[in-house]
């Protein structure tokens, strides 16, 4: 699929196992940057008030501390926080983004420092134009700083161990008594379709009752077409239960 090439980056480990990074979109990255800029600006306005108390002792020393403080804080915020939080700034953490090494290795301090020191060129001439264009042209969505440091910015959705028991329910799965239909389903249902059905069941309580009925009716109708289930099996099983039965036979093989 074309999207695999444009939005995913695959890394193969020495053990021969491959895993995938989901590259963050430029829009998400821009939103994280906005959050970080706001954080720096708000935090500095508080710090500056505290530092200005030094004026009580010496206006000159206060001037030095404020000038150096702002420079270090604005330049060092991203470096320090990405180092402390393994590739995440506050904006990135809020939006579930993370800077990672393009080979999947642990990020080094040099990589974090370099990608942030090069923000200047990515920001040229205005509003991250150079960085934005480079990101769009690059198949790993890297701005110049990321190219130099060999890093990627990835999106990490919340992952949890799938809970099969929660989805299966307690009712008898009538589909299992019809071997040919189960075989047809396993052959015809694509991974993305199986996942869609799984997600619909996992999130059933989030839907309005009317929408839920409509959604499961559509899913059930589709799976019934694929499975070519005999008409006598359709009548007594509600659409949602039928989808649940389909997910059960797709994901759980009881031999």
């Amino acid at each position, binding site marked *: 699929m074309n999207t695999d090439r444009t939005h995913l980056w695959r*890394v193969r*480990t020495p*053990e*021969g*196992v491959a*895993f*995938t990074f989901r590259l963050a979109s430029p829009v998400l990255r821009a939103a994280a940057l906005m959050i970080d800029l706001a954080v720096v600006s708000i935090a500095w306005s508080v710090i500056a008030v505290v530092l200005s108390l030094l004026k009580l002792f*010496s*206006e*000159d020393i206060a*001037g*030095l*501390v*404020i*000038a*150096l403080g702002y*420079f270090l804080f604005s*330049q060092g915020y991203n470096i320090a926080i990405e*180092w*402390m*939080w*393994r590739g995440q700034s506050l904006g990135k953490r809020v939006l579930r983004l993370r800077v*990672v*090494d*393009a080979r*999947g*290795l*642990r*990020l*080094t*301090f*040099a*990589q974090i*420092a*370099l990608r942030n*020191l*090069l923000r*200047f*060129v990515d920001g040229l001439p205005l509003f991250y134009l150079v960085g934005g264009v480079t990101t769009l042209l690059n198949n790993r969505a890297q701005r*110049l700083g990321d*190219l*130099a*440091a*060999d890093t990627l910015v990835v999106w990490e959705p919340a*992952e949890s*161990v*799938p809970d*099969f*028991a929660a989805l299966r329910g307690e009712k008898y799965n009538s589909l299992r008594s019809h071997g040919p239909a189960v075989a047809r389903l*396993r052959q015809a*249902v694509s*991974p*993305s379709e*199986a*996942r869609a059905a*799984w997600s619909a069941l996992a999130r059933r309580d989030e839907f309005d009752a009317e929408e839920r009925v409509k959604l499961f009716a559509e899913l059930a109708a589709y799976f019934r077409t694929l499975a070519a289930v005999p008409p006598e099996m359709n009548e007594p099983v509600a659409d949602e239960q039928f989808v649940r039965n389909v997910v059960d036979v797709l*994901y*759980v*093989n009881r*031999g």
Partner: protein
Amino acid sequence: MIVNLEKFVAEERPRWERLDARLRKLAEDPWSKLSLVEARELESLYQRVAADLARLSSYAAEPEARQYLENLVGRGHAEIHGARGAGAGFRLGAWLLQTFPQTFRRQAQAFWLALALTVVGAIFGAGAVALDPEAKEVLMPFDHLRGGPSERVAREQENRGKELSDRKARFSGMLMTHNTQVTLTAMALGMSWGIGTLVIIFSNGVMLGAVVVDYLLDGQATFLFGWLLPHGVVEIPAILVGGQAGFVLAGALLGRGQRVRLAARLRAAAPDVVTLCLGAALMLVWAGLVEAFFSQYHEPVLPYALKISFGLMELVALTWYLFRSGLAGGKPASGAAKIS
């Protein structure tokens, strides 16, 4: 092949969750170190989960568990195979006395290129001001340098440094941040295949040459060296080190004569570039303090001989530091702290 995914997940889940917890704990503390037992357990859990992922990959209809495991294996891979971070073994003394000067020498070619460009720029600036005094208006970097040198010398000697008496610290902070910004810009523009770095280093040389020849032609050589040497012998090399970092970056980008891929070349250059930038920034802190608290005082407050001698001593010390520090019997000392 997995015959029962539910059973497989139920059996393996405790290991996955244990690896997840271990990785979370490590992520929370960038300075944490594992004991031998913990490291062995981490590796064993990682190997097991990687094997689980390999088994699950054949089960195409189960993307949720696969993605969960991919995430775990990705994080585990980074911990198991990742390089040691700076936090684990960084020692400031070793970095100052060994890593920075050794890096400087390892990338000396780029420094000589920056120096040569500065010299060519200085000759150009000096020639321009000598041949066409009106060029001074264009080439001088700051307003206070555009007037006649003799008038400035007379004014500053009369002021006895009072102009800065209540704002020396602020002035020094302004110098440090401004010069560091210029240095970092020279480095960052290495990503323009070195063209931006070349322009900054050359134009810096042009301004330097214009100022020097302006004062020399006006017969103010003693003032010039007394004013410029104490901070300039550190400030100018620091900017050259920034240019050196930019050229190292450009060299990795261009990859002339190298058979390694672009990403690998840049990855190899990154630690040296960052080390050079940090070294240059530290040099500029020193230069800023000297410029604000020492260079701006002239005779009769401070004798020019003293200022010039101080500048020359700094130059000798800096040269020794950059070219000799960290050498052990002619070879780089082992155990240098790395920013990797």
